[in-house]
C-alpha cells in the first residue's frame, strides 16, 4: 500500500507549486505556530506525566522537568494487559480499514458512474447515516438490546462489523468526491477497448483514487481506534476488549490515575503514527500534475 515508485503518477515530477503570497503566508504560518503550541504542550505534558512517580504528579507550582523519571507507569500499564488490548485493536482496525475500503470503493464507483434505480435515494441515505455513526451514544441501550437479541454481541466480529458500518458512509463519500474529478473519458476508453467494469475499477479507478483511499483509510483507522461507546458496551470478554475502555479504566470509580492514564494514551498514539506514516503520505503526495491527463 505504500508508494510504489513505478506507478505512472509518481513518474511525473511534482510541479513547483506557487507559494502563498506574502501576507496570507505569514498569517497561515502564525496560525500554525499558535496551533502547534496548543497541540504540542498538552502532548509533551502528557508524556512527561507518564514518566512521573505518584508523588511528583501534583506539585504546586507545577514541575516541568525537575523530577526523577520512571517507567513504572508503563510497567503497570503493560502488566494490566494493555499490549493484548492493543494487539486486538490493531486487528479490529486493520480489518475495518480493509473491509470499509473494499466495500466503499465499488459503492462509490457505482454511485459516481452508473445509473440505477433509487441511486439518488440510496446516496442520500448514505449521507444521512453519518449521524448514526456519530451519535451512537444516544441510542446505546436500545442498540445493545438489539445486538444482543441478534446474538451479535461479545464476539470476535462484533466490533470490526460495527466499526466498518460506522466508517463506511464517510469512506464512500470521500472516495466518491475524488472519483468526480477523474475524467469519465478514461473509463469509457477502457470499456471501448473491451475492459469489463471490474477491470475499469481495478486498473483505472483504483490507481487514481489513491489519495482518497489513503484519506478514507486513515479516517477509518483513527475513527475505529478511538471509538469508545460501542467498544465499552458491545463486548465483555477480556480477550476482545479494545484499547479505549482499557485507557478509560484508569479514570475509574476510585479516581483518575494520571500516570497510567497518560502512559496508556501515549502508547495508544503509536499505531496511529504508524498508520499515518504508511497511509498519510498518500494524502500529502496525492495526485500530481499530468496524472489525470490519461
Amino acid at each position: 500500500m505504500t508508494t510504489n515508485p513505478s506507478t505512472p503518477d509518481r513518474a511525473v515530477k511534482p510541479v513547483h507549486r506557487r507559494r502563498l503570497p506574502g501576507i496570507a503566508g505569514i498569517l497561515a504560518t502564525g496560525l500554525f505556530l499558535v496551533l502547534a503550541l496548543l497541540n504540542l504542550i498538552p502532548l509533551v505534558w502528557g508524556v512527561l506525566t507518564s514518566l512521573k512517580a505518584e508523588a511528583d504528579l501534583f506539585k504546586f507550582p507545577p514541575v516541568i522537568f525537575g523530577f526523577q523519571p520512571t517507567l513504572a507507569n508503563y510497567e503497570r500499564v503493560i502488566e494490566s494487559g494493555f499490549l493484548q488490548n492493543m494487539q486486538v485493536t490493531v486487528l479490529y482496525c486493520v480489518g475495518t480499514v480493509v473491509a470499509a475500503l473494499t466495500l466503499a470503493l465499488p459503492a462509490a464507483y457505482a454511485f459516481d458512474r452508473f445509473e440505477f434505480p433509487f441511486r439518488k435515494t440510496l446516496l442520500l441515505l448514505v449521507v444521512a447515516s453519518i449521524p448514526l455513526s456519530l451519535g451512537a451514544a444516544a441510542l446505546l441501550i436500545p442498540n445493545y438490546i438489539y445486538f444482543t437479541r441478534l446474538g451479535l454481541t461479545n464476539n470476535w466480529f462484533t466490533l470490526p462489523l460495527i466499526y466498518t458500518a460506522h466508517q463506511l458512509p464517510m469512506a464512500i463519500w470521500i472516495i466518491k468526491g475524488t472519483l468526480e474529478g477523474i475524467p469519465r473519458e478514461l473509463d469509457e476508453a477502457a470499456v471501448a477497448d473491451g475492459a469489463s467494469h471490474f477491470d475499469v475499477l481495478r486498473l483505472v479507478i483504483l490507481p487514481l483514487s489513491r489519495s482518497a483511499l489513503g484519506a478514507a483509510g486513515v479516517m477509518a483507522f483513527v475513527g475505529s481506534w478511538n471509538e469508545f461507546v460501542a467498544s465499552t458496551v458491545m463486548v465483555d470478554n477480556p480477550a476482545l476488549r479494545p484499547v479505549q475502555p482499557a485507557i478509560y479504566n484508569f479514570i475509574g470509580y476510585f479516581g483518575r490515575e494520571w500516570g497510567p492514564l497518560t502512559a496508556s494514551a501515549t502508547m495508544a498514539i503509536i499505531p496511529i503514527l504508524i498508520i499515518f506514516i504508511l497511509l498519510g503520505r498518500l494524502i500529502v503526495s496525492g495526485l500530481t500534475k499530468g496524472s489525470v491527463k490519461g
Partner: protein
Amino acid sequence: MRTFIKVAMAATVALAALAAAAPSMAQDKTIRMWTFLNPTGTAPREVALAKIIENYEAANPGTKILVETQVWDQMTPKFLSAHATGNAPDVIWVVTDFLGDAIKSGSLADLNELFIKDWSAEQLADNAGAYWDLSLVDGKQHSIFVSRNYISLMYRKDLFEEAGIDPTSLTTWEAFHDAAQALTVKDAAGQVTRYGFATGFSEQQADPSPILPPMLAAGIEPFNADGTANFANAKGVEAMTLLTDMVKEGISPAQAATWTVDDMFEQFASDRVAMIQGPAVRVSTLQAKLGADKVGLMMWPGDGVAAHSPAVMAGWAVGVWSGSPIKQEAGNFVEYMLGSEADKIWVTDGGQVPGLQSTLTELADFIAQPGNEYLAVAAEGSAKFGWLTPIDFAVGGYRQAINKAAQRVLVEGVDVETALKDAEVEFNRQNNR
C-alpha cells in the same frame, strides 16, 4: 495493491484465530462476573480481587472466574438491559444508585436460598449493619456490599499540626468554619495560596453535597415519603448558606463551582486545600501521593446534640443474577468473595473499609498502624453516623441538582432558598414526581 491484499488476508487470519481462541477459554464451570476492577491490573483493589479469585480457583478445581471488566458508570444500566435480554453475567456488582432498580427488576437472586440459610447466628451478626439491611427487601437478601464508601471530611494532618488545630476540636459547624478560616493561607499579594475547605460543585461526577449531613443531623430527610425532594428546608438553606459564604469569604475556592471530585483531589494533592469533602475509598490513593502520615479522615462535625452529623454512604453491592444457570456456584463464589478470609484481603491488600465486625478486631494491629486509622473511622462512622440513600424510589440526579443550586448561588448570584427550590422542582420533574 499487493501489500493491501496481504494485509487483508493477514487480518482475516488473525481475527479468525481470535475467534478460535475465545471459546477455548470456556471451561466446564465458568462463572462470569461484571465489575469495574481489572484483575490483571495493579491498583490495590485489583490486586486484592486477583488474589481472592486465585484462592477460590485453587480451592475449587474446575471452576473458573471470568471477570469481564466494565466501565463503572455504565455497568449497572447495562446489566439491567442484559437481564432483560437474558444475557447477564452470573455475578454482578451494583452501585447504590441503581440498587433499588436492580432489586425491583427481579434481576438479583435471593442469597438466603443460595448460602445465607446455612449461616450461624455469629456469621449473621458479623455482617449486620445499615448496608446489610439496605438490600434486605421482603425477607430476601438481594446483595451484600463489597465496597463501602463513607463520604466525610478528609484533612491534611500536617497542615492541621502546622496551624496548631486539633482535628478532634471540630465538634460543631462553627468550629469547622473557624478551622477552615485558620487554615487558609495568603501570599504577600493577598492571593490565597491554600484554602481551608473545598468541595467540588460540578454536575459531572457529583458526590453528595455537604449540605446533607447537617440536614440529616437535624432529623430532616432530603426526600419526602413520596420520593419528592426536600432540599429547601430551613436546615438545607442554612447549610448551603454556610457553604457558599465560605466561598464568599475566600476560605473556600470560587473556582470549585466547576470542580469535579477528581479536580478537588488533585488540588488537595497539590497542597492547595487543607480540608475537603472526601470518601474513605480515596484515602489510600491520596496517601500514595502525599505520604501516609499526611492524610486523615474524620467524621463530620456534630450539632451540639449528636457528636457527629451523619455522612452519606454509598458503595458497591454484589449479587447473583437471578437468570444464571449456575446460581449455586456463583453464590458459592460470592460467599467466599465477601467472607471473612476475603474481607481481610480486601482490607490489607486493597485498602478497603472492613465489611465484617470480626475483621475489625482480627486486623486491629493493621488498622492501628499509622495512616490506617481512617479504616476505623469509616467503620465506626458507617455503624453509627451514616445515611444511605433510599432505594424505595429512584433518586438519580439529586446530587447533580443540589450541586447545580450551589453553582447558581456562586456564579449567578441566585438567592440560596430560590436555588434550592428550583433544584427541588428540577429533581421532581426529572423523576416524574
